[in-house]
């Protein structure tokens, strides 16, 4: 016999779909099938069932091989490493639940760590822009129910957020949008002819690295001022046309991704895209939203926001919180040799960071907490496998529009495996012991 768990939340991307159905064995130990998910989401669930999964912590030996250790030993190693360091980096926090993030924050506070999440290589620049200019935004349901102008800038949801377009942005029929996609004008700005661009009414193939100028040109066009003949390779007539298309809508939404957050100009590209959105609100209604990647990177920014006041790159080393990307961001800290130990949970910097930073992690005392074997586990001294959040344990996660959704447990983790939160709670207790508090 099998049973079906409904309303399951997908712990993959920031779209945080919550309508999955998962078929599990009657004893709740095996996950058999996943419905409604995209291919990536389904794979995330099914991957948890891998027979060769690592289920016990491991410590790197001098010869480079792994030796299995107990969770107790892993807790002790981690706590000692953090307590001994003058300035440890605690990085990741995006593929886990808010409950674990909260315990992690308390550890960071106790040991004087720098807390950073994957925004540091993704939408951290968006967060900087929001600090400079704000952000008129909305929930995804507002897009579904109202939007008739949809602009994707430097993002490709067809591949990175596969169900975004059908659930929220292009195809759904909502309260005021009964015609679905036929009532919406879709604009894509991307140097590449992407699959998302192929769905667009207008595709602006901007020259790489000229997004800032093109966004400025839109602002100039809104005000009816003169433009140069070409901006970023786009003829001015096209720019005026797009400006008019956006202004003439009833509700415009701009989605943006790493094509602009991590290309030249970074936060400034987002800053001026937000300025474009502000401008549009003088003529109609407009909102803008980052296409957040990891399913709960948004949540870690929220948890740290209410606990420390900053959404990423929070330096707690002096006992109080400080924040300044460029200094307190992971890659700057690693590049400059500002940290002396590295703890990773819920991310894979081994795959996402520049090689020079990965080399620094390899050279330092390091622990990685991750259900998978990853490029990061390859360079760390200790690897602690844990239960999959959203599959084997529930907990809160924040969607890309900051809507909090409680993820569900659908199957048991393999016998004896700890969750992120359990492991961190043990580490916190051990840190307090070591520090005598």
């Amino acid at each position, binding site marked *: 016999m099998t049973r079906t768990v409904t309303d399951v939340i997908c712990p993959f991307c920031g779209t945080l779909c919550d309508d999955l159905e998962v078929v599990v064995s009657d004893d709740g130990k095996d996950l058999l099938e996943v419905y409604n998910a995209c291919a990536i989401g389904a794979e995330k669930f099914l991957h948890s069932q891998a027979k060769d999964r690592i289920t016990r912590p491991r410590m790197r030996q001098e010869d480079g091989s792994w030796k299995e250790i107990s969770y107790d030993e892993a807790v002790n190693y981690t706590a000692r490493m953090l307590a001994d360091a003058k300035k440890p980096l605690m990085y990741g926090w995006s593929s886990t639940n808010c409950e674990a993030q909260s315990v992690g924050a308390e550890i960071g506070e106790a040991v004087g760590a720098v807390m950073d999440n994957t925004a540091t290589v993704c939408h951290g620049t968006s967060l900087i822009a929001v600090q400079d200019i*704000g952000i008129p*935004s909305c929930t995804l349901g507002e897009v579904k129910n109202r939007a008739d102008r949809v602009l994707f800038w430097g993002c490709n949801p067809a591949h990175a957020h596969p169900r975004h377009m059908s659930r929220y942005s292009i195809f759904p029929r909502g*309260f005021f949008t009964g015609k679905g996609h036929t009532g919406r004008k879709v604009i894509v700005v991307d140097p590449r002819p992407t699959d998302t661009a192929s769905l667009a009414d207008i595709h602006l193939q901007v020259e790489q690295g000229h997004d800032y100028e093109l966004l400025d040109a839109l602002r100039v066009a809104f005000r009816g001022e003169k433009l140069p003949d070409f901006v970023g390779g786009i003829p001015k007539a096209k720019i005026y046309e797009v400006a008019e298309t956006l202004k003439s809508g009833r509700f415009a939404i701009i989605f943006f991704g790493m094509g602009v957050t991590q290309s030249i100009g970074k936060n400034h590209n987002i800053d001026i895209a937000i300025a474009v959105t502000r401008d549009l609100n003088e003529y109609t*209604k407009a*909102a803008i939203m980052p296409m957040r990647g990891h399913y709960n990177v948004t949540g870690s920014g929220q948890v740290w*926001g209410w606990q420390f*006041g*900053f959404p990423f790159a929070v330096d707690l080393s002096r006992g109080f919180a400080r924040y300044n990307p460029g200094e307190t961001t992971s890659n700057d800290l690693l590049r400059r040799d500002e940290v002396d130990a590295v703890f990773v949970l819920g991310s894979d910097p081994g795959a996402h960071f520049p090689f020079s930073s990965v080399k620094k992690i390899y050279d330092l005392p390091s622990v990685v907490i991750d259900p998978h074997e990853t490029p990061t586990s390859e360079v760390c001294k200790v690897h602690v496998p844990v239960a999959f959040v959203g599959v084997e344990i529930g907990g*809160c996660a924040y969607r890309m529009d900051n809507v909090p959704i*409680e993820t569900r447990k659908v199957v048991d983790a393999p016998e004896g495996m700890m969750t992120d939160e359990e492991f961190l709670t043990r580490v916190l207790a051990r840190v307090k012991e070591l520090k005598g508090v």
Partner: protein
Amino acid sequence: MAEFLIKNGFVFDPVLGIKGDVADVAIKDGKIVETSALRSPKVIDATGKTVMAGGVDIHAHVAGPKVNIGRNFRPEDKLFNCTAGHGIERMQGGFSVPTTIRTGYNYAHMGYTTVMEAAMPPLYARHTHEEMRDTPILDQGAYPVFGNNWFVLEYLKNHEIENTAAYIAWLLRATKGYAVKVVNPGGTEAWGWGLNCENVHDPVPYFDITPAQIIKGLIEANEYLGLPHSMHMHANNLGTPGNYTTTLDSFKLSEGIKPNSKFGRAQVMHHTHVQFHSYGGEGFNFESKAPEIMDYVNTHDNITIDLGCVTLDETTTMTADGPFEHHLTELNHLKWANADVELETGSGVVPFVYSANNKANAIQWCIGLELGLLAKDPMRVFLTTDHPNAGPFIRYPRIMKWLMSQEARDQQFDAFKHKDKVIEATNLAGMDRELSLYEIAQMTRAGPAKALGLSHMYGGLAPGLDGDVAVYDFNPNEPYAPDDIEKAFLNAKHLFKSGVQVISDHEIASNGNKRTLWVNARANENPQVMRDIKEKFLRYYTVTLNNYEVTGHYLRNPHVIEVDATQ
């Protein structure tokens, strides 16, 4: 649990009617008891000090999505004011939008033990509860917003009170909410299209209903259920010169409606931050209409209000009144966050600098204090700043100083750049009333507790009430300078919360035993409303119905107030 005997303090308690007499207060097992019930109490010497019940804040923005936007998008609000933890205290930061940890500690330092979060977007209820969970010491509850909710708009268009009530009961349970909050009724839905509703008869686009219908209908539904608190109102047209007529129009919608509540409140409408709603004139000829507003409030006892005093600080404005925040950013050009919430509400956040050099800001300062000084019944007029909108809550003791001392008000007038013009546009300079500590206790303890329907727990020192007691270094019988008031009430010497000493000799001694209050109203089964809910989730929400309800584990020490509204 420990027993405490707080001896020989000057006690101010509107519940017992004690006006500064020397008396002892006894705490046992978390409650106030008769002194005779104690066996071996720890004795707290309060000789020469002021003793009051723990403070109760009926309206502040301290937890939830827009508060956290305010934190995360204002690193400059934390520059050089983050402090390290020590002992049991955790690290803290932020001035106008402090971290949850500092929020709990700073309220405690002011002698407050209960703080209500004034606007919870239902879809973000889980977030609000996560923040309240991480706010130490304080008892808290949150008000879900209803005034732009599509269910409410559709039911009240046809004056379907019973359906509205059933939906309210369902949503309070789903969000673990405390009361019915209304913010710019209809106007925030209009803001979904970049529009607004500027008076109570300005129809909501598409929904074909007026703010007046929403306001009156929600009051009636609230009384149909007999909830502990009344409908809690932020009227249309906030912050606009000439808006006092809209405020009076909104007040009048409560006329003829009698409270139906077993919880002891007498009002059917609580109108919040009335300072922002008491403006006369137009454009630059902006003036105080506090006397007109207070004439109405003083003569209608089914209304309570809170002040929303401007404190002349740099702060962060945040409200579910989306169109207002857009208006504000167009005025001051500072960063603007907006977050519209599907089917429910919206919000905006903009930093704002209230300056003594700005005539309008100085007039706003006068209006807030005028409202307080014109109050005939301080049990119905409560001290707030609409934190952080008109100023951060840590200025409450400064407002007490201004309300209690004409000398302090004169000092502030002298600091205004446009003193004469400010005096001309307001009435405050001619007022010599100085509120007593007893009246302050009414405005900050007994009054708000009663209006919340929580006078069986909070707001006084009668035996049986919660053991929430503050002791301040203030001797009302000795000469004092105005600043002594602020200093003393900013820094309680001792504080007891539910019988636990959380401040001892000005230091945080415990992270307390915070509770989260919510209201479980049981109404008649209503299949139509349940069908409507299922339908709207299937068609228009982006989360499923089964993922909407906040489960109990998000609440620390939940305290459920049961209401039986079945008929």
